[in-house]
């Protein structure tokens, strides 16, 4: 496994685009890119629902 990189080592372009992430994505197949994005969104939605549920329990 590769050692984690220091944030200062991450390669950004002049507009702040993370080029390391794009290089990683380009190393995947289009299908893998879609699956990865869908999993990220699913996790985000689950987290959002959990947070909403927790907030509604706090409401008197």
């Amino acid at each position, binding site marked *: 496994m590769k050692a984690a990189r220091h944030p200062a080592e991450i390669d950004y372009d002049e507009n702040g685009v993370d080029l390391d992430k794009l290089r990683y*994505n380009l190393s995947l197949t289009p299908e893998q890119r*879609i699956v990865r*994005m869908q999993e990220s969104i699913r996790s*985000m939605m689950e987290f959002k629902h959990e947070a909403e549920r927790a907030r509604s329990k706090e409401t008197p």
Partner: protein
Amino acid sequence: MKPSALDLKKLLEALSKEEVDYVLVGGMALVVHGGDLATTDFDLALALDEHNTAKAARALNLLHPLLRGVVPVELDSKAFAGEFVGFLTDAGAVDVINRLSVDGGYQGLRERAVRMKLFGLEIQVASLTDLRSLKSRSSRSKDLEHVREIDAIIRMVSPEE
């Protein structure tokens, strides 16, 4: 409101089953090209002849569309008449974009689209250049972020451009 499932395979299967003439555009098309920005919906451009919009309506009806995320609707060939029409479906939120700010409109978009096999299905994805044109007409910060990402991908995959 039902939760957004976001299942591109399910959407593509429905479109393929009805042989809809479409091009995948928007954030998910950019993900296909290698983009990293999260997107929570699917944007489609359609051939707007009545035969094709009827097929698109049948395809989306297979996915139980809800208008504004809550009202069940039965789509027909006239359902995509607006500039921008969106439904929540079993595959996630689907937006149909009719105002295409690209050379040659839908036909141009289609001719320049990248053809690929995804989940075993032949699909057409808007070219990076056309995605850039579509995104750059918007003033939304999210779209401008997409433009910056598209520029970076273009430089990576075609450094001479």
